[in-house]
């Protein structure tokens, strides 16, 4: 950066803006902003395109004269659009986050929190379970041969189908509240962790395992000193997927618990009443939540990797 300054001396005005631009481009803000702007633009295009047939139908039924400008304006202001315009979604989010008490059941923040808590609980249980299973699979041949196929099979069970039954059964044995929902998150999130960690625990090079063998290192020692550190990159990649799936699980799990509260209930109620704008607002909240969770895992990854002396 400093080295480039003397070279840029002639025409310093443009060079200055150049570096400012570069500094922004090197950061994340500008690229994200540009990509977002592009997406928003395309989105507006689609809003008009997708909502137009309905709007034209309205005009015809009401026998009104209309111009293209009218059409563009009206397609972005429908009450139940096929695709709501970005500003409609934002307005709805503003209304349901800022303008209401966070504790009110109309507050999106409240619903997000409910979903988040079961996501986190489920994710924590799921990751732990996944790691433990992977440990078992890597260390016990019987488990390797027999459990893995059934872990895979378990994932092909459509969770939404069993979720109500799980909830009913758990209710029958006295479990209710956060845990049943969290268990559905667990069910979805342990799988990527198992798959990733089995791979990770098996990723040490032959020579490294040989070295541990020459020390007659116990399995536990080999595990903590070699397998675990080698598997960490896999752990974090898996956890990114797992935390995102966990959220999906929590949302799915909210349906059979009676669609009472949480982003899932909100989505459902929205679709039940055809409130597209409300669906999209909830959808965005969910996505924002997921993005922050994934980013958080990513941050953890960077910190841990830096502590492990990874090459920058």
């Amino acid at each position, binding site marked *: 950066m400093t080295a480039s300054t003397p070279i840029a001396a002639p025409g310093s005005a443009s060079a200055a803006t150049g570096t400012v631009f570069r500094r922004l481009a090197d950061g*994340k803000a500008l*690229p994200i902003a540009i990509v977002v702007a592009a997406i928003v633009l395309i989105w507006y295009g689609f809003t008009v395109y997708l909502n137009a047939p309905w709007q034209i139908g309205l005009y015809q039924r009401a026998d009104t004269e209309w111009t293209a400008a009218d059409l563009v304006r009206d397609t972005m202001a429908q009450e139940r659009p096929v695709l709501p315009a970005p500003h409609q979604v934002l307005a709805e989010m503003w209304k349901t986050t800022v303008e209401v008490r966070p504790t009110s059941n109309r507050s999106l923040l409240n619903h997000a929190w409910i979903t988040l808590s079961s996501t986190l609980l489920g994710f924590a249980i799921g990751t732990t379970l996944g790691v433990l299973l992977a440990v078992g699979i890597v260390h016990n041949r019987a488990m390797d041969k027999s459990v893995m*196929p059934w872990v*895979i099979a378990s*994932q092909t069970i*459509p969770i*939404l189908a069993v979720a109500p039954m799980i909830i009913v059964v758990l209710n029958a044995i006295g479990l209710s509240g956060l845990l049943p929902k969290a268990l559905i998150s667990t069910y979805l999130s342990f799988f990527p962790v198992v798959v990733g960690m089995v791979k990770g625990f098996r990723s040490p090079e032959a020579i490294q395992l040989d070295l541990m063998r020459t020390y007659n290192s116990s399995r536990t020692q080999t595990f903590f000193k070699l397998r675990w550190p080698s598997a960490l990159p896999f752990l974090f990649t898996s956890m*990114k997927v797992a935390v995102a799936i966990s959220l999906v699980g929590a949302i799915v799990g909210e349906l059979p618990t009676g669609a009472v509260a949480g982003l899932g209930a909100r989505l459902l109620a929205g679709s039940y009443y055809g409130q597209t704008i409300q*669906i999209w607002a909830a959808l965005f909240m969910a996505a*924002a939540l997921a993005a922050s969770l994934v980013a958080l895992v990513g941050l953890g990854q960077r910190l841990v990797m830096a502590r492990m002396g990874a090459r920058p």
Partner: protein
Amino acid sequence: MNAAVAGALVFWAGAWALNEWLVRHNPRAPLARRALSLLVPAIFGITLLVVWEGLVRGLNVPTVLLPPPSMIWDRIVGSVPTLWADFRQTFLKAVLIGYALGCGSGFLAAIAIDRSPFLKRGLLPLGNFVSALPIIGIAPIMVMWFGFDWPSKAAVVVVMTFFPMLVNTVAGLSASSAIDRDLMRTYAASYWQTLFKLRLPAAAPFIFNALKINSTLALIGAIVAEFFGTPIVGMGFRISTEVGRMNIDMVWAEIAVAALAGSLFYGLVAQIERAVTFWHPSIRGG
């Protein structure tokens, strides 16, 4: 504790011991080796079923909550045409097509992101965003956009499988070692040459990770998407309908088909993985 429950538990203990004994054998003949690697999970599975049957019968669990495996089996045998039609609709159409498109686009997006540092910073965080678009949120929207039939289900599968592929491929593309990248640099290899000859092979274990995770996610996605409006055929349709009709055995019959199809699909991907990434320590080591 009653006899059925006790019997189930005894069976479990016995089967576990048998498996432990079996895996200690390491036959040299490849045929025996293959047989063993099928026998062990089979015994485990049979154990699960026996324990299930025993517990359901022994504890008198209402069949509308959980039917015993024997009842499910009867139902499977009795409803083959329906099951086949549902399988064709959901798996052969929605899952396979959605999987191919979702994995494909996730992969291409990862390449695009990798190619351009700009996109890497701009698009990857948004990729995280897409990842969490919950199926139950997008499924109705996809039905709105792509109609009732399988294309809307395939679209849901695309959205679900996209992110795992993206994340894994991006991670995999940075998995090649520094010295190997230096080597390619000394050849002044072009971006694409480095990609195809070094970075993609080195990324293959990660990519297969995603392909495996996605093989099960795709099925879940397609089935769940069918809860939100479909023609009256499909595994998800059948499941949601038959739950309402208290035909829980039919629900489990569909689940069994889904589990079988999903496991075979996964097995196929895993088999291809072994062939393609034979050099990776996790596979070389056996």
